[in-house]
């Protein structure tokens, strides 16, 4: 049963990865044949300021994405898990961003955030008319915001599903004991959602390593190096500067970072020891 899967995995994942590792030791511009370069690319990838900055930005993006998205989607998810009818209606509108493709979202926000013809100019609100994507200080946070706008609905959906699984009897018992809404949230909802938090966080953290399309269309890595995250650095190095060897080394760094992060998450969050929430109640 496992054989076809293994063959496909080997053919489309392991073989290309082996080729990339080989390429990372060569100098190749995409034309002609790769020339052996020893550890040159690795030395450059690990010491160059640009790549180190890109790695730092990727980590920063990971942290900010988590900090911004988790509380919002947790609260919204618990809120829309309630039973009132208006919430269902609200949720329908709320999940709309899930349906829009990333490139479309990037194009929309690029236009909305334009300082001359964007939202700020249209509504005559100078506060909104900041140079969101052109100011090196602001551009990174604008990216964090747009990513949150895109992904919060998805994580809200996860939390909504998680919150609906919590047995009503817990809340009944708590209110008999005189716990208020805040106490109920703190002592029942949050602990019961811990596995959902782990799942959602894993998706967020590992996903933030691969944000490419949105940032590429929105800022192209600029202004300057302000939003040049690691996947974008790899793309620009490989396909715009035609340094395939160096780009391969960067992509291996990216794969290793992804593996380390997901392994760490599984190990320290207790993801591997997860059991039914009902039994361990």
């Amino acid at each position, binding site marked *: 049963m496992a*054989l076809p899967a293994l063959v496909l995995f080997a053919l489309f994942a392991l073989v290309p990865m082996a080729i990339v590792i080989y390429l990372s030791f060569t100098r190749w511009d995409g034309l002609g044949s790769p020339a052996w370069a020893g550890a040159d690319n690795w030395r450059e990838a690990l010491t160059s300021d640009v790549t180190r900055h890109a790695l730092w930005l990727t980590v920063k993006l990971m942290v900010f994405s988590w900090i911004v998205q988790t509380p919002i989607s947790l609260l919204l998810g618990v809120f829309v898990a309630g039973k009132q009818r208006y919430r269902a209606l609200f949720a329908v509108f709320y999940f709309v961003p899930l349906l829009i493709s990333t490139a479309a979202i990037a194009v929309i926000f690029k236009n909305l955030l334009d300082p001359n013809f964007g939202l700020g100019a249209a509504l005559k609100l100078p506060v909104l008319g900041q*140079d969101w994507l052109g100011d090196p200080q602001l551009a990174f946070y604008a990216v964090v915001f747009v990513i949150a706008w895109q992904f919060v609905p998805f994580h809200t959906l996860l939390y909504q599903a998680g919150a609906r699984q919590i047995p009503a009897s817990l809340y009944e018992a708590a209110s008999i004991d005189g716990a208020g809404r805040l106490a109920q949230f703190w002592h029942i909802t949050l602990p019961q959602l811990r596995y959902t938090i782990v799942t959602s966080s894993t998706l967020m953290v590992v996903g933030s390593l691969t944000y490419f399309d949105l940032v590429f269309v929105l800022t192209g890595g600029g202004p300057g190096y302000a939003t040049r995250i690691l996947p974008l650095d790899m793309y620009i190095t490989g396909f715009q500067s035609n340094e395939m060897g160096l780009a391969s080394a960067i992509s291996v760094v990216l794969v290793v970072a992804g593996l380390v992060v997901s392994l760490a998450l599984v190990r320290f969050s207790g993801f591997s020891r997860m059991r039914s929430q009902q039994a361990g109640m």
Partner: protein
Amino acid sequence: MPARIPSHVLVATSAAVLALTLTACGSSGRTAGGSSGDGALAWALTQGSEATFRASATEWNKEHPDSKINYQFFQNDPYKQKLRTAVGAGNGPVLFENWGGGGLKTYVDAGKVADLTADLNADPEWKNRIFPSVLESTTFDGRTYGVPVNGVQPVVLYFNKQLFEEVGAEPPKTWDQLLALVKKFKAKGIAPISMGGASKWPDLMWLEYLVDRVGGPEAFAKIAAGGKGAWSDPAVLKAAEMIKQLVDAGGFAKGFTSVSADTGQAEAQLYTGKAAMILQGSWAYGTMATGSPKFVSAGNLGWSGFPAVSGGKGDASNIVGNTANFFSLSAQASAKDKKTAVAYLRDGVYNDTYIDSLLKNGDVPPVKDLEAKLKATDNADWTTYVYGLARDAKSFQLSWDQALTPELGNELLTHLDQLFLGEISPQQFCAQMDEAAQE
């Protein structure tokens, strides 16, 4: 899983699927190679001159049924990667459109492009038809690897005549006049210059012109030759300082670093009266004529050359920009395909109907003795101006991001972006570029 499928069925199916995918790749690779019976294959871009290319192929194929030309068209950005992959894998087309300069040179160095020098020399009438300054973009070590196929694209300074009248200003002839204009327009609440800085390459036009005006074409010649310390040349440093001066004076419209050049929003600032000037390639004329036909037809769009710099070495007639797009011939094409392609480039490109078609499209080809034809076009003022610029220029410098290797070109754009943002000083800019050039 609801129904269990026996594993051998899965293995067989996946093997079949794989076999299909692989053969599909193989066969499409072969047709893309152009060795099939229906003629030489040419790859070109969807933007710009597509209509002209199509019409010329139809005409050519009617007259030469034995040696046909077939076009395939691609969008700009994916095209560059597709071409590189296909040529790298030996599956490239017979003819391919390119931009000359460092990009083409990487293909030449890899031995992928045929030398056209002998063919051009064998037919002086063909060679002499083309502006020599334009052919230079595809000439390396005295050998020519491509011929131009569309219009010249010099960079000019456009201005909004209405706004100039409003403040009582003349188009700037010198750098000092330009700086004075910046103050004048700012005082009236008008942005002096708009620019699509998010795309980075419009920044480059300022550097190219300033380095030329201060140090003459020799300054860039040294850079292109890879001379040590060429980026720290006093002319480059002076130009970088002048850029900083202009940015600090508030010369560029608010938020210029987030305006993308591809969406036409920088040009829109000019014709909506938000900004007074823009430095852009000749294609911006088309952008504005499409964006606001009324503005252009009412004669509100003005244009002039880049201002002179007092005490500078560069001639004020020198221009920078894209010389043209070129067709190059694959070194791997069969002898028959090569013969067809050369004949097509000689007789099928830049013939009378071809040139008329380009002119109708607003393109001005770098071909000698066009004055009479230009006068008959709809926008004769503009086409005559562009033609005169290209014809009379003492030097026509290819855009640096194309003249240099793609690697260095990319570094240049990013560092220049930082200079415009004020993140690095002019000295740092020069030092960082020198460092990048030595790698």
